[in-house]
């Protein structure tokens, strides 16, 4: 233990230098960092620690995609495709409805005559040949296969992520993180966001826009439905179930003004939409059509003349903010399924800044306290341990910066805790050296025995803490993960610094000064 090969010495020095250089960008001000970024070559380290949302402020939203609603919608769609097909093929049925029993989605048909089953099957096959078809004495069911459901679900999630990204990008939020989590969840992280309310409102709206003909004075049936008016939900209006056009045919939507000078949303259809809109408006001059957003009728204007240009306007006593949000939602497109917020953690920028400040002060004071304590307890050896502790801190920040790991408030706590625990290895070694000296050993041999005998204990002690950190990492979420990361890094670096760095310094001093007794 006393003789350290030269290559080891060099390696230790290189690692220490790495730690100092790579942790430096965190210490110098942002001006100096900008200077380095602009004037020095790219290999000069300039990355700083990545602050978590709880430190820089921002929002963490866990959203759930209502996948079932998509499957129900698909089943209903299947029913409406099937109905005219069965009719035109003169297949009599008593009942035709969508089904969603026991996680099976699809349609159920009660045939009048079981002999029609083959023909029915052919019709269903032509519509979608992945459906699982079953016949039980004229009770025909056609349900989506598990593969089809998986496909629909994963499409829905992907599409939702895309729409969420577009909506958030439209608001100008910087560097959002949007990722799938588990089967039906989407994690959205919005760093630096002041007020998550607007984003929450935007994400809480499906924004499914459809245009329907109004069918006044009828009750709900298979072809019509009754919807409330957005302005006054007690007032209802009956419209055709079938949508003439939908929001996915829009190419642009902007805030504008209606004839009365009120904020409105102007939009433009794409080529197909424009053609359809022209045909629809030409055929129905004089009738009312309803503009429906998420099952609420925003307005139901009269078609005064054919609308050929493919441009239109939605007015409905909006505020400017409502109009611009609606325009944004229409531009970004509708969500394939409603989203609900399962978890939210938003931290305002001031609390984040306060926490960073508090963390800095706490770490500095904790560090100084431990440094003083070690120096006064172990003298020269304590100073060596202190050098190792400072190297350890530098290494932690260097690793956090170069891995771009996220530092959270509990993460800072982990670092402060590491400050206290990192010296443990040195305490073990020094106490052992003391004992060996009391047993009458020479300084050299006491130091040698101290290092080698404490070693297995140090390994045991560090590994057990590492086990706790690893398990915390795999089960923890968000900030707690940050705690386990800094703790684990701290354990690894303290192992290096407390053993290698301290030993190098102690051995160097022993060899150059050859003391006859040790004060420790």
């Amino acid at each position, binding site marked *: 233990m006393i003789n350290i090969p030269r290559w080891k010495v060099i390696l230790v020095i290189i690692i220490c230098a790495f730690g100092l250089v790579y942790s430096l960008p965190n210490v110098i001000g942002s001006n100096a960092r900008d200077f380095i970024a602009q004037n020095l070559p790219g290999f000069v380290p300039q990355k700083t620690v990545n602050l978590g949302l*709880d430190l820089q402020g921002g929002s963490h939203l866990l959203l*759930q995609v209502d996948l079932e609603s998509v499957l129900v919608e698909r089943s209903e769609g299947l029913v409406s495709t099937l109905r005219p097909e069965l009719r035109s093929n003169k297949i009599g049925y008593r009942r035709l409805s969508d089904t969603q029993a026991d996680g099976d989605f699809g349609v159920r048909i009660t045939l009048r005559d079981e002999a029609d089953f083959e023909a029915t099957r052919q019709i269903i096959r032509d519509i979608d040949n992945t459906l699982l078809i079953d016949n039980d004495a004229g009770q025909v069911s056609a349900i989506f296969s598990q593969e089809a459901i998986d496909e629909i679900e994963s499409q829905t999630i992907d599409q939702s992520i895309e729409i969420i990204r577009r909506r958030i990008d439209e608001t100008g939020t910087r560097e959002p993180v949007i990722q799938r989590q588990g089967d039906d969840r989407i994690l959205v992280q919005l760093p630096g966001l002041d*007020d*998550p309310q607007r984003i*929450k409102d935007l994400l809480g709206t499906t924004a499914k826009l459809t245009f329907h003909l109004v069918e006044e004075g009828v009750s709900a049936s298979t072809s019509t439905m009754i919807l409330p008016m957005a302005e006054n939900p007690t007032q209802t209006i009956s419209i055709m179930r079938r949508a003439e056009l939908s929001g996915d045919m829009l190419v642009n939507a902007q805030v504008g003004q209606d004839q009365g000078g009120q904020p409105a949303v102007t939009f433009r259809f794409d080529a197909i939409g424009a053609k359809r809109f022209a045909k629809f408006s030409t055929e129905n001059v004089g009738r009312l059509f309803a503009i429906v957003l998420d099952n609420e009728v925003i307005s139901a204007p009269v078609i005064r003349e054919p609308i050929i240009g493919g441009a239109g306007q939605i007015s409905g006593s909006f505020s400017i903010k409502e109009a611009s949000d609606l325009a944004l939602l229409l531009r970004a497109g509708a969500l394939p399924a409603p989203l*609900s*917020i*399962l*978890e*939210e*953690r*938003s931290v305002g920028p*001031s*609390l984040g800044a306060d926490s960073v400040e*508090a*963390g800095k002060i*706490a*770490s500095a*004071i*904790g560090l100084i*306290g*431990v440094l003083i*304590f*070690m120096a*006064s*307890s172990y*003298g020269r050896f304590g100073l060596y341990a202190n050098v190792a502790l400072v190297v350890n801190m530098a290494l932690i920040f260097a690793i956090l910066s170069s891995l771009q790991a996220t530092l959270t*408030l*509990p993460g800072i*706590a982990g670092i*402060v*805790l590491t400050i*206290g*625990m990192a010296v*443990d290895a040195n*305490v*073990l070694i020094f106490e052992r050296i003391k004992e060996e000296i*009391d047993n009458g050993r020479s300084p050299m041999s006491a130091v*040698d025995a101290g290092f*080698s*005998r404490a070693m297995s*204990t140090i390994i*045991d*002690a*560090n590994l*057990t*803490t590492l*086990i*706790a*950190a*690893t*398990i*915390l990492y*795999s*089960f*923890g*979420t968000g*900030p*707690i993960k940050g705690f386990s990361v800094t703790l684990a890094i701290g354990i690894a670096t303290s192992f290096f610094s407390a053993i290698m760095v301290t030993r190098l310094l102690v051995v160097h001093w022993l060899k150059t000064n050859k003391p006859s007794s040790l004060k*420790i």
Partner: protein
Amino acid sequence: MLLRFVPKNTNIDFIGKRYMAFVLSAIILIGSVALLFTKGLNFGIDFTGGTLIEIQVLQEQPDLGSLRNDLNALELGTISIQEFGAPNNLLIRLPQQGEDSFAQQEAIETTKETLDGIFEEGIEYRRIEFVGPQVGEELQKKGMYAVLFSILGMLVYIWFRFEWQFSAAAIIALVHDSLATIGLFALTQMEFNLSTVAAILMIAGYSINDTVVVFDRIRENLRKYKKMPVTELLNKSVNNTLSRTIMTSITTLLALAALWAFGGEVIRGFVNALIFGIVIGTYSSIFVAAPILTFLNIRHKKQDAESSDNPEEVKA
């Protein structure tokens, strides 16, 4: 002159006082379990679901009484309001609004509108945390698994490195410390949340760490002093490592004290748990883990190292 917290060559009869320690530990443990069943834990929204809003009132001095009335008038269930760190910093908790997360979001909005109306000089929303019932349940499960698995993980490690007697004693000490910390939370009704679970895991790690150091020495002394009676040997080992045990506790507590005083209100509960855990962990490795070994026959194995003072230690 260097500081010395523990005098040289202590020879304190820790093992002799083991029954006193066991009585004390029994009181702590029975008390903890009793508190757990009577008072229970004050679970935070991480586990119960619900909403937490931290606000800073910018100008005026908030009147908690009238604020409580105003918010309870919203009929969102029992809303708790407490001062958080400073008189103008408030922590507001809304209970879970049924199973519906839309209702919860609406409750948050109504509360914010009401608050904006009450404090005309302006307030700042420092933090909003909302945990839905589903996530709350998952976090409960995750927290429990985390504690169980880490205890299991450490058990496996200790079992590899030591004889079963040591593993048993180490695990008893670990459960002792974790349970006592949970008991503290039941007693003080401090909020028990995700970071508390993290703190308990840390405490478990520290407890094992401390115990392992003492056990390493016991194992070494077992090889060195083959004729020494077990009680004496255990005492000697605890005394040998006493200085280190105390020193490391002091440095860790120093760092934690800085965190407690300057680290801010948000993590104070976490730091409270850690400080208590370090103290109880230190106590248990001296007074619980080592003394338990007197009941477990640790001198049954064949001795391997012949020389009593061989610098080339045989590693297990």
